[in-house]
């Protein structure tokens, strides 16, 4: 397969995943969050019931423990656009995917071995 064709198909697959992800993705805590909530008593280790109040308290407790209260307002927090629902999530993940494509192409272009 030609590189050009390979790249076009690759971009198409990435965009299909980006559009589908917000509809298919599980909203459950990921492995690290789940371990964190379990350790702080907001969720059983091998169970699925999450106590939202205890989860919030756990996050406060982590800041007290580490003293790291750095906070930062991301442009599209949690792969969403504030004020928009699912459509915002699709736009966010698609924009992120396209941004990756452009950013990595640019960084790779600058840092790649020049062909003589």
């Amino acid at each position, binding site marked *: 397969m030609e590189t050009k064709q390979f790249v076009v198909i*690759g971009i198409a697959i990435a965009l299909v995943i980006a559009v589908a*992800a917000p509809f298919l993705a599980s909203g459950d805590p990921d492995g690290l969050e789940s371990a964190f909530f379990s350790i702080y008593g907001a969720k*059983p280790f091998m169970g699925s019931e999450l106590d939202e109040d205890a989860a919030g308290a756990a996050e406060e407790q982590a800041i007290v423990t580490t003293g790291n209260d750095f906070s930062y307002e991301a442009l599209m927090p949690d*792969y969403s656009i504030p004020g928009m629902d699912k459509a915002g999530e699709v736009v966010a993940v698609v924009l992120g995917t396209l941004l990756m494509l452009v950013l990595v192409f640019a960084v790779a272009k600058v840092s790649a071995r020049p062909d003589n």
Partner: protein
Amino acid sequence: MHIPDAFIPMGQALIYWVIALIFIVLALRWARRSMGEEKIPLVAVLAAGIFAIQALNIPIPWGTSGHMVGAALAAIVLGSPFAGVFVLTLVLLVQGIIFGDGGITVMGANIVNMGVIGGFIGYYGYTAIKRVIGNAYAAAFIAAWAALFVSAILCAVELAIAGTFPLIPGLTMMGTYHAVIGLIEGGITAGALYLIASARPDILEHPAGVSA
């Protein structure tokens, strides 16, 4: 497995940043020496695909979910552990800055855990296992599983040093959840490698990765 800012004290977070920067410099040196210009589009497409698939959280038991990391895949396809560092550093940068996924002060730790560990265990695991069992896809599955599992174990150790997780419960829980999430990493890595190798068989013929 993206650590948020609150989980690691600032001083320790800076140490992980220093370690990460050393590997980023080494990854840039790898790029200058070994990443030919013909690989640029492939690297960009791989990074975009890895970003997209990272947004797809797949449910596992125990009210938990997990997603692909992708450093092992990048390292295997491009033929160097530093390819995993190169791609994951940029993925984590965009995720942290634009999407608030993974902290800013702790980004170094996330780059070490997912990019460095993922890239090195993924690449060297793949080449070693492939030599022993001969099947590239089985080797990719096992190496990617191990890459994700070891990343999670290191993450638990870092959080124990940070005081956020007690060591043994942290290792037990992170290990259990990520032993399962690793199956997702292994499956997608082997599947993606199959698709890429079907389109470009030269990738598997030359262990140094795709050439043109």
